[in-house]
C-alpha cells in the first residue's frame, strides 16, 4: 500500500514538475512577434516603452499593437477572429465577450494565465464582466461604473445642490442650461451603438425596472423602456450641441472644454476632468454616484487570447504570458505613477497610499459608493451587440427627430429580437 502511495505521489510530483517545467519552458520558448489588436489606451502606449522587459521575461518575444477606435476595433476584431485570425491577442469588452467566447474566437484565459500574476487582485466588478459561462475570458485594462460629474463652480453660483435623485438632476439641468452663455445643462450620447447611445440610455431603463429577456422571450417592450426613452429624450433638449450624433468623445470633450454643467458618464471621465493637461475645468469638478434610481453601467475592457493565430498550446501560453505581464501589478503601478487613472483595475493599486495621495479621499469614496449601484445593464448574450446596435439606430432616429413614436420603435425592436433569437437557434 505504501509503495502504491509512493508510486502515486511520485507520479503526482512528476506531473507537477513536468507541468511547471513545461510552463516555464513554454514561457521561455516564446519568440517572434505577438500581434495585438486594440483600441487606443494610454496604458498600452506606456507598455510599448517596456518592450525589452517583456523580451527578457518571455525569452525573446516582442509585441506589436495595432490601434483602432472603439467601433472600428469591434468590427475588425470580429472580422479577423472569424476569418484569417492574424492577431494573437484581441482587445474585447463586456459587450462582445459572450459572442467571442461562444464562437470559440478566444481561449479561456485562466488556462494560460500564470498564477503568480494574481488574477484575483482585479476589481471584482471587472472580473464579473470578464466572466461568461463560468469562465474568465479577458484580463482588464479598464473598466468601472458611472459617476455623476458636475461643475462645482456653476452649481454654487446658481445655488443648486449636487443632485442625488433623478428628479433633482432634471431640475438642476434645466436651471443650469444657459446656451446664450455657452453652458449646456448636460451631455448625453446620441450616436448609434450598443456601446454609445444605448449604453447611456440603459441606466434609465434598468433604473425604472426594465428587463431585456426572460429566457428567449423579449421583455424589454415595457413601460420602463418607454419611460426611460421619454426621460432620455427630455434631457436631450439640454444636451450640448454635437452630442446628438456624438459618443463618449463628444460628451467628454464638451465637459472638459467647460461647456457642460453636469453629466453621468463612465468613471474614467473623472481622471480626464481633473487633469489640467486634458481639462479646462480641472479644480472645479465634483463627483457623486449616479442619481437614484439610475444604475451604473458596469463595464470592462481587456485582453484575450485569440484561438486562430495561436493554434497550439505553446503560442496560447505565450499570449497568456503577454496578457499577464501587460496587466500585472508592476505595469499598473507604472500607470498610476503616470497618472493614468482610467487604466487602473487592481484592488491593490486602487487602495494603495500612492493612489490616495494622488487623487484624494473623495474620489476613493465616490468610487466605493458607485460600486454599490454598478450593474450589468446589458443583455449578457452573444446576440447582444446585434440587438443593442439595432436599438441604437432607433434611438438615434428618436433623438434626431426622424422618428417620433417611441412605442412603434420598441415594437420594431421586439420584432427584430424575435427574428434574431429564431435565427440563432
Amino acid at each position, binding site marked *: 500500500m505504501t509503495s502504491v502511495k509512493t508510486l502515486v505521489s511520485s507520479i503526482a510530483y512528476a506531473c507537477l514538475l513536468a507541468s511547471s517545467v513545461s510552463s516555464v519552458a513554454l514561457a521561455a520558448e516564446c519568440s517572434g512577434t505577438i500581434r495585438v489588436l486594440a483600441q487606443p489606451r494610454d496604458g498600452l502606449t506606456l507598455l510599448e516603452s517596456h518592450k525589452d522587459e517583456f523580451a527578457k521575461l518571455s525569452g525573446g518575444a516582442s509585441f506589436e499593437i495595432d490601434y483602432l477606435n472603439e*467601433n472600428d476595433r*469591434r*468590427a*475588425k476584431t*470580429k*472580422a479577423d477572429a*472569424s*476569418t484569417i485570425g492574424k492577431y494573437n491577442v484581441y482587445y474585447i469588452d463586456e459587450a462582445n465577450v459572450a*459572442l467571442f467566447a*461562444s*464562437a470559440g474566437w478566444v481561449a479561456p484565459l485562466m488556462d494560460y494565465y500564470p498564477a503568480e500574476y494574481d488574477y484575483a487582485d482585479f476589481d471584482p466588478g471587472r472580473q464579473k464582466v470578464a466572466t461568461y459561462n463560468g469562465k474568465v475570458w479577458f484580463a482588464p485594462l479598464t473598466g468601472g461604473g458611472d459617476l455623476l460629474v458636475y461643475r462645482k463652480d456653476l452649481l454654487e453660483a446658481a445655488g443648486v445642490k449636487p443632485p442625488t435623485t433623478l428628479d433633482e438632476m432634471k431640475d438642476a439641468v434645466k436651471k443650469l442650461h444657459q*446656451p*446664450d452663455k455657452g453652458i449646456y445643462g448636460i451631455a448625453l450620447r*446620441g*450616436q*448609434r451603438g450598443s456601446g454609445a447611445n444605448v449604453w447611456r440610455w440603459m441606466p434609465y431603463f434598468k433604473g425604472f425596472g426594465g428587463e431585456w429577456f426572460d429566457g428567449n422571450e423579449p421583455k424589454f417592450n415595457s413601460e420602463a423602456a418607454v419611460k426611460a426613452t421619454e426621460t432620455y429624450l427630455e434631457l436631450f433638449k439640454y444636451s*450640448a*450641441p*454635437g452630442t*446628438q*450624433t456624438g459618443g463618449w468623445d463628444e460628451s467628454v470633450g*464638451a465637459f472638459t*472644454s467647460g*461647456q457642460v454643467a453636469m453629466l453621468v458618464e463612465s468613471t474614467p471621465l473623472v481622471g480626464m476632468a481633473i487633469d489640467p493637461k486634458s481639462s479646462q475645468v480641472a479644480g472645479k469638478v465634483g463627483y457623486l454616484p449616479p442619481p437614484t434610481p439610475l444604475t451604473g453601467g458596469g463595464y470592462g475592457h481587456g485582453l484575450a487570447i485569440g484561438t486562430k493565430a495561436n493554434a497550439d498550446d505553446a503560442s496560447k501560453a505565450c499570449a497568456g504570458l503577454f496578457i499577464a505581464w501587460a496587466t500585472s501589478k508592476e505595469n499598473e503601478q507604472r500607470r498610476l505613477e503616470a497618472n493614468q487613472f482610467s487604466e487602473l483595475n487592481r484592488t491593490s493599486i486602487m487602495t494603495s497610499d500612492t493612489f490616495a495621495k494622488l487623487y484624494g479621499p473623495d474620489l476613493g469614496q465616490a468610487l466605493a459608493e458607485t460600486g454599490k449601484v454598478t450593474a450589468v445593464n446589458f443583455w449578457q448574450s*452573444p446576440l447582444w*451587440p*446585434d440587438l443593442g*446596435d*439595432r436599438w441604437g*439606430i*432607433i434611438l*438615434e*432616429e428618436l*433623438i*434626431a*427627430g*426622424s*422618428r417620433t413614436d417611441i412605442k412603434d420603435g420598441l415594437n420594431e425592436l421586439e420584432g427584430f429580437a424575435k427574428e434574431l433569437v429564431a*435565427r440563432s437557434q
Partner: protein
Amino acid sequence: MTSRTRLPAVFLAPPLLILAVLAFVPTAYAIYISFRNRELSRPDGSFVGLANYIDLFSDRRFINAIGVSLTWELVTVTLTLLVAIVLGILMFEFASARQRAVLTLIFLVPVILPRVSAAFVWKFAFHPLYGVVTYPYKAMTGQPLDLLSNPTTALMTVALVDVWQWGLFFGVIVLKLLETLPPQPFEAARLDHARPWEVYLYVALPMLKAPLISLTFIKMIESLRAFDLIYVMTRGGPGIVTETLDMYAFSQGFIESGRISYASSMAVLMMVATTVIFTVIWKRVKP
C-alpha cells in the same frame, strides 16, 4: 507572324490572371454565400436559396438605403459636374495663364487629400461648437448650427464635401479641355454677336460632349464608393438618413450582425443593378 500574334497574349495573360483571381474569385464567392445563411460567429451555414434576397425587400433599412444611394448619386454627380463646368469656364474666361496655373494647383489639393483625412477635417469644420464653417452662424445668431445631426441637412452636408473634392478637380479638367478646343468656332460665334454664355452653351459645351459624358460616368462610379466619407462623417446617421447601400451592407456584415450572407446578397444586387443601369445609360448617351 506567329510570334507577333502570340506576344500580346504573353503580356496580357499575367495581368488578366491576376485580375481574374482578384475580381472574379471574390465576386463568385459573394454570389455563392449570398445563397447561404453564413454568419461570422458560426462557421457552418446552409443553403437557403433566395431567402436573403426576399428578406431584403421587407427590410426598411434596405429600402431606405436604395433611396439614399440614389439621392447621393443624383446630387453628387449633378453638383460635381455643375461646379466643374462653371469653374472651368470662369477660369478659362477670366484667369491669365499664371493665375490658371496657381488655381489648378489649389483645386487639385482636395482630391489628393485622402478621403478619410478630408472627412475628418470637414467633420470638425462642421462641429456646432468649434467648427469654422458653423462659427459665423453661431456668432451672428447665438444659436449653434448642427448640420450633421439634422436629418434634413446631414446628407447634403456630406455631399458638399464630396463635391468639394471632385468638383474642383473636374473644374481643372474642364479648363484643360477648353484649352484644347480650336479657337475658330469661338471667334465665329463672337463675330455673330453671341453673348459669352451663348458661346459656351452652344459652342464649347457641345464640342466637349464626349469627354463630359466620360467625366459623368467616372463620377457616377466614384460616387458609388462614398463609404469612407459617410462612415467618418455620420456613420449612416442620424438614424439611417445617410445610410447608403454599401454602408448598410458593411454594417450588416461587420459592424452589427456579422450576417455576411445577407450583406453579400446586397452586394450582389448592387452589382447587378449598377451593371444594368450603367450599360443602359452608356448605350443611350454614347456620343
